[in-house]
């Protein structure tokens, strides 16, 4: 009788403790959201979103940062989505599951997903800016400095490497949900493998490609470490017009405003509002991805 009671108490304690952990995590999420909303909502307005910073970034809006972030994720997606999709197609359609090449690629993708983001920044600096950019300047511009410095292109490509695994994983998951029968039917009708992939597999996994793109965009919009020295600028009076321009970025803006600026306290509302914009952006994108993905899973069932 005594051991049964003891068992019941321990059981209750463990269940409660584990439930509390879940509650704690959810509470943290809600607290972060609520604090940011309360801190930022009075400053947040249409004007804030569409105007330039003024008075040495003490007042005004964050339009250049939003614009720069948008350009960054667009160029990044153009680079990451096709390459990620093709890799996923290779892994699921061409490679044999057990072949060493497929295994190595999978290992590389997972490694890429866990490499710290700052390493991508270093790589962008060492490879894109110094090696590729320096090489381009030497070969095409005769040593004139144009590409061997931080800019939009190098920042976006660095970010594309970071988000590549995100795309690969989502697309592969979606491709696997395309029923085998559809492929077999297509092949039986005389379509070649590539025709089957192009006309059957890719259209069938378009929602996965979308999820992957959305997740990649959300990740790319939020990461700061990779662009610290590959393209982000503290303040720019004009919007970037070409790939060789530097750009402002929401996350970098938050970082510099809260740590490097001379009067952090005065600009606090701007910082909170910027954080709110970034958080809402990534939050909405993630939510969209979760919804698309869950509807996809339901379709499979």
């Amino acid at each position, binding site marked *: 009788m005594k051991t049964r009671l003891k068992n019941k108490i321990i059981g209750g304690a463990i*269940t409660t403790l584990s439930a509390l952990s879940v509650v704690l*995590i959810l509470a943290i999420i809600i607290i972060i959201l609520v604090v940011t909303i309360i801190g930022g909502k009075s400053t947040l307005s249409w004007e804030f979103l569409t105007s330039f910073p003024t008075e040495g970034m003490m007042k005004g809006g964050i339009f250049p940062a939003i614009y720069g972030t948008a350009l960054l994720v667009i160029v990044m997606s153009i680079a990451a989505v096709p390459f990620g999709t093709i890799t996923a197609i290779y892994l699921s359609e061409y490679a044999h599951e057990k072949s060493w090449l497929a295994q190595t690629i999978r290992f590389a993708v*997972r490694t890429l997903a866990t490499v710290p983001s700052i390493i991508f920044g270093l790589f962008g600096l060492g490879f894109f800016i110094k090696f590729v950019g320096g090489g381009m300047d030497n070969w095409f511009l005769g040593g004139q400095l144009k590409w061997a410095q931080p800019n939009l292109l190098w920042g976006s490509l660095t970010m594309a490497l970071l988000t590549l695994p995100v795309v690969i994983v989502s697309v592969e998951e979606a491709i696997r949900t395309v029923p085998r029968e559809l492929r077999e039917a297509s092949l039986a009708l005389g379509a070649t493998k590539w025709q089957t992939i192009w006309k059957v597999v890719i259209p069938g996994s378009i929602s996965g490609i979308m999820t992957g793109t959305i997740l990649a965009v959300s990740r790319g919009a939020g990461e700061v470490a990779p662009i610290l020295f590959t393209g982000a600028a503290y303040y720019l009076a004009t919007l970037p017009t070409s790939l060789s321009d530097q750009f402002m970025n929401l996350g970098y803006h938050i970082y510099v405003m809260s740590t490097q600026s001379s009067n952090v306290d005065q600009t606090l509302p701007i910082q909170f509002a910027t954080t709110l914009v970034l958080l809402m952006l990534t939050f909405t994108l993630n939510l969209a991805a979760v919804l698309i993905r869950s509807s996809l899973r339901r379709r499979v069932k």
Partner: protein
Amino acid sequence: MNSDLVKNKFVFTADSLKKKFRLSEFLSEKIITSVAFLSIAVIILIFFFVFRESLPAFKHRPKATTEQQKVSAGNKPESYGSSEVSAAEKKPETYGAVKDSSVTADEVNPDASLRPAEGAENEGTLGSLFSNEWFPVSENPRYGLIPLFVGTFKVTLIAMLFAAPIAILAALFSSSFAPPWLREWIKPAIELLAGFPSVVIGFFALMVMATFLQNMFGYETRLNSFVGGIAMALAAIPIIFTITEDALTAIPDTYKEASLALGASKWQTAVFVILPAATPGIFAAVLLGVGRVFGETMIALMATGNAALSGLNPFESVRTLAATIGAEMAEVVFGDMHYGVLFLIGSMLFIFNFSINAIAEFYVKGKLVKKIQGK
């Protein structure tokens, strides 16, 4: 003629059954395969280039010694006493970090002309990597990595002490105790936390959490390894949770059913059967969490205080390896010693993360599979 056609159509010969060569098929397969190589190539390139850029840290030595020799040729008495001088010089510099301007002005100026040479000989070399001082931009630069390592390990330890138990318990709840409808909500909700940009978590830690925790515990420095550790725990929790949850749900139902059939209660099954069976997976989850915290840059930059102290007090400011790269790379001269040392730190981070991932991948997964299959 006619019989030929019939033959071609209906009789399968070895030749007619052969796959027809189509250029488009051939090309598409080759292109797709070579694009798939990209991820492998990127890993190799990262390794190569980050390591290559760290070479200035190693190359610097001969140049420094030749400079030293030139100086010592014209300045013999001084170079003999160099070991004593540098030992004495170390002190004011350390205090100088606390911005005691009167002391540094008095002590440093008289022999300012000598300092670069002395520094090049004693400190600005590889040997100084193992020293206890990180003063990369002083006149007498020292690149001691020990405080950075101590800081990183401290923050990682604190983060894991918070993140691991919470995340594992939450995963246990989600996989074993929660009803199915609740489970379908918990997982995506916690994964939303993974979508929070680290700069947002860093900002939250810097502006809200640091003040809150300081009021609660009453320590002196507002930003320290404790605040940074907890903030990083927020980044690590979703990773540990997701992987642990996957590992727990991957345990075959037969385990659970056998345990329940023997009369064990729900919690006993969860704690004594499912949890032990999933240990390798949980170990992998914690490892990947460690990897995430170890390389986290923005949170470390914003919430740890960024002072390269090597004490063990958790309420002291620290500077992590990744934050050092993030804070100083923008200000270095390309190709000099400091630049090389920062890349060296980067290669260390990369190798560390690569090994962690490899361990999680091969050792742990192999073990998990064996355990489930009962071999």
